[in-house]
């Protein structure tokens, strides 16, 4: 169900574009983000696309941020309405230990590959995704490289002297 108290908040968070041809001006301001609970995300997204005041029909992008100290992944959705010329950013947080959230690829098919990318690089699982498998990394790759605690396993294409190789300092000199 769509949480009713969000309606006012949404209307405050929308970035309106008045001049034709102008792009939404996203500012790095906490007030410009709409933060929702992960359990509400799918309903909110459906409302954002369908309600005549919102009509966010264009998913610009989605990505994730790894907040390793807070032990959460923050998922960020950039939405835009091509009919009403307005934009909004939706954020939600899932725990790092069991990162799982409802897929929005049934609402915007364009989110399909974006979610696969977040799954590939961060390991966030998207429920009811039609084809959740790796998109960037090759078959047989293990791990999720954009996680901040990712440890790279040296393979045959590496020289073994990279920063972060276990047992070597950042100049590639073995640590005694």
């Amino acid at each position, binding site marked *: 169900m769509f949480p009713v108290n969000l309606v006012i908040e949404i209307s405050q968070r929308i970035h309106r574009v008045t001049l034709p041809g102008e792009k939404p001006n996203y500012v790095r301001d906490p007030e410009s983000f709409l933060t929702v609970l992960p359990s509400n995300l799918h309903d909110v997204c459906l409302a954002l696309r369908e309600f005549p005041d919102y009509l966010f029909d264009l998913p610009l992008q989605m990505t994730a941020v790894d907040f390793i100290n807070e032990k959460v992944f923050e998922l960020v959705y950039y939405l835009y309405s091509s009919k009403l010329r307005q934009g909004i950013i939706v954020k939600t947080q899932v725990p790092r230990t069991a990162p799982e959230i409802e897929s929005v690829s049934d609402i915007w098919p364009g989110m399909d590959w974006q979610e696969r990318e977040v799954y590939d690089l961060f390991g966030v699982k998207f429920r009811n995704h039609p084809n959740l498998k790796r998109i*960037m*990394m090759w078959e047989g790759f293990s791990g999720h490289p954009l996680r901040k605690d*990712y440890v790279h396993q040296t*393979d045959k*294409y590496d020289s073994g002297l990279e920063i972060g190789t276990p047992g070597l300092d950042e100049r590639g000199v073995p640590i005694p």
Partner: protein
Amino acid sequence: MTSGFDILHGLRRHKIVGGELFLTTVDFFVDWGRKSSIWPLTFGLACCAIEMMASFASKFDFDRMGVFPRPTPRQADLLIISGTVVKKMAPAVERLYQEMPSPRFVVSMGACSNCGGPYYDSYSVAKGVDKIIPVDVYIPGCPPRPEALYTAVQTLQEKIDAYWDAGKQILKPVPPSEEALKKINEAAISARGS
């Protein structure tokens, strides 16, 4: 009647009536053909490929050296690794190299394909294309200008010369005797009907 060496070493030129006579060895001729028609594969990997494309276009016009991109590895002599070799692409690069007929040459263009370049500490970039295939010429730069690629082609031509010179004793062309030249001249005169 004069005879002398052309500026190309190993090519003897004799003036005869009605034209000129060139004498050479098969080795030299094949060698000359090889280095004057280095056909690279149409294959670009990253931003360096933009410079490579500019080299083939009209401003730098590598066609004047016989460098002319081919669409299939079966017809290519040269593989220009122009860009970042990511680990996902590396098996495909290796396979393209194996599909090229011998003799085949590899030019590694730019910092990325030499050693990983700006992405040295990345999890997904191979630390140099020489981890998978042998390389003949390395070009430094990020990206190298078309002039640098030009130098690489010249270096490769010198190397092709050196490969065959080193491999076997090249037979120097023997100048024809005065009598033989006389006969050739007579034949040329009678052929012209004068």
